[in-house]
């Protein structure tokens, strides 16, 4: 377990962050420049904090007050960088084994073959990094960090430079790493889809301060937690049950107490739970159930709050049963329909807007 409580001033930027991780993945989430990568540097030992401490499994990695500073090579923390930073003069295999060689013999618990199999990099071992694609490089980088048998794995925006197709390939691999190798992970990202899919705990960081800590549902389900973000780039996280599939049309049916959502393509296993993320701008509001419309997915609820900004209005809807949904509509439409707190509405969600990227299967247990 890691406990972070640090402060650092860099120029005009002031960082003051405290959190602990639990099981699985802890995500540091925030806009670029919020200080989340800086926090990662302090954990990894690339930088020294001005005050505070980082404690990993009961051992102080840095404690300014007690004058402890463990250099990075003695911290046993694996770091996966945004751009893989593989050693260009070594083969993939040499890269993978680099950290293993420095790990104490008795703690080399992670099996080489298990890692290359999980990451699907067995056929790349003899190649040099220059002969790898971006996605392959990042897989090797994950393997390299993992094979140093770290007590903690840090990911610094590992998917940010990859295209959508590569992201879809690698995200499930990170999930597998999380589930198979039992190494706690701290994952830095500004992409909601990634943190919702991977993380058990999300730490929202803004302007060098922790704004919220909690599960994805808690953090993204509250208006207050969003104040820091792009105003109308909000999203809601909903937990749904996978009830069936329409194979003729290639659709999956998800049930929520407030309605049904149809997804294009497969999602999880029938009877299981899926977490979906709906951007506020992908929601249309209607006073009645949709009629003569192409939209088939809708949820019912009651408007509980409204914020306006220029021509736009953001409605927060308490869904029937449980959960909240954000919807961005124009202020004009809002006034014409007579929307306001307490009004019952139907929130229409375009199924095409719910691609695989925005869906996450919940980790078991």
């Amino acid at each position: 377990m890691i406990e972070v409580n640090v402060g650092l001033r860099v120029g005009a930027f002031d960082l003051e962050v405290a959190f602990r991780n639990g099981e699985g993945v802890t995500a540091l989430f925030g806009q670029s420049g919020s200080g989340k990568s800086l926090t990662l540097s302090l954990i990894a030992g690339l930088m020294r904090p001005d005050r505070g401490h980082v404690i990993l499994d009961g051992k102080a990695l840095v404690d300014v007050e007690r004058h402890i500073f463990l250099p990075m090579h003695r911290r046993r923390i694996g770091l996966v960088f945004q751009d893989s930073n593989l050693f260009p003069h070594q083969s993939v295999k040499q890269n993978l084994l680099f950290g293993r060689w420095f790990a104490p013999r008795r703690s080399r618990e992670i099996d080489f073959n298990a890692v290359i199999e999980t990451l699907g990099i067995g056929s790349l071992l003899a190649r040099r990094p220059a002969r790898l694609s971006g996605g392959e490089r990042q897989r090797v980088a994950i393997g390299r960090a993992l094979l140093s048998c770290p007590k903690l794995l840090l990911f610094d925006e590992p998917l940010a430079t990859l295209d959508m197709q590569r992201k879809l390939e690698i995200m499930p691999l990170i999930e597998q790493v999380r589930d198979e190798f039992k190494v706690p992970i701290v994952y830095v990202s500004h992409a909601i889809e990634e943190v919702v899919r991977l993380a058990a705990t999300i730490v929202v960081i803004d302007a060098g301060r922790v704004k919220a800590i909690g599960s994805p549902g808690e953090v993204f389900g509250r208006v207050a937690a969003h104040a820091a973000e792009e105003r109308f780039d909000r999203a809601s996280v909903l937990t749904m049950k996978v009830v069936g599939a329409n194979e003729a049309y290639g659709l999956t049916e998800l049930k929520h107490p407030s309605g049904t959502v149809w997804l294009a393509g497969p999602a999880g296993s029938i009877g299981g739970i899926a977490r979906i993320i709906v951007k506020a701008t992908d929601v249309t509001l209607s006073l009645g159930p949709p009629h003569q419309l192409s939209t088939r997915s809708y949820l019912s609820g009651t408007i509980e709050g409204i914020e306006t900004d220029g021509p736009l209005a953001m409605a927060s809807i308490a869904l029937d049963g449980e959960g909240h949904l954000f919807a961005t509509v124009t202020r004009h439409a809002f006034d014409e329909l007579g929307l306001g707190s307490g009004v019952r509405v139907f929130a229409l969600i375009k199924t095409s807007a719910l691609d695989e990227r925005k869906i996450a299967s919940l980790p078991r247990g």
Partner: protein
Amino acid sequence: MLDLSPASLADLSPAEWTAILLSLRIAVVATIASLPFGIFTAYALARWRFPGKMIVNGVVHMPLVLPPVVTGFMLLILLGRRGVFGPFLADIGIVLSFRWTGAAVACAVMGFPLMVRAIRLSFESTDRRLELAAGTLGANRLWTFFLVSLPLAIPGIVVGAILAFAKALGEFGATITFVSNIPGETQTISAAIYTYTQVPGGDESAMRLTVVAIVISFAALVVSEIIQLQAEKRLASFE
């Protein structure tokens, strides 16, 4: 009349051979012996921050801007038989003045700035995050240096070494000032050419040595070019 036929140019006299072999020996020893110091200095200048860095940088580059004769004279003052460190060196069995070893020292000093510049550029162009990556994987600074920084700087090190070698081959002013111009001991190709041009009928010998100097220098340049190209190809990325 100057005879420029290939047969004449290839027909080197024993004295000329002596000068060539001596030049090669001095240049090779000067390059190899100064290489570890060059790598260390280049790395320190590229990666470390320390007080007096500007001064170190200045001292390293001095031989590049000073008249070579001045550098040679300073070597004489410092390392000559009656110089500042000369007697001490003589006590431990090292005599440099008027010896080929002294010529190697002069050549090493003159080539040092060129060597350090090339290697330093190579260290500076290496992505620092690769060194950080090695650190997070458990390598301490020394391991990181030998496993990451040094291998990645090899193209620059080769170029630096070849530049220093070429400089050593052509060095004249500092060498002749420090160790004089003794055939068989300190008379390099350059000094020999100079000597031949000063005596009647020496033009042909001077010409032959000039051709040899051109061939060696050109070969060194080609080798450095090939090594650089290979290194670039090896590290080149698809993107």
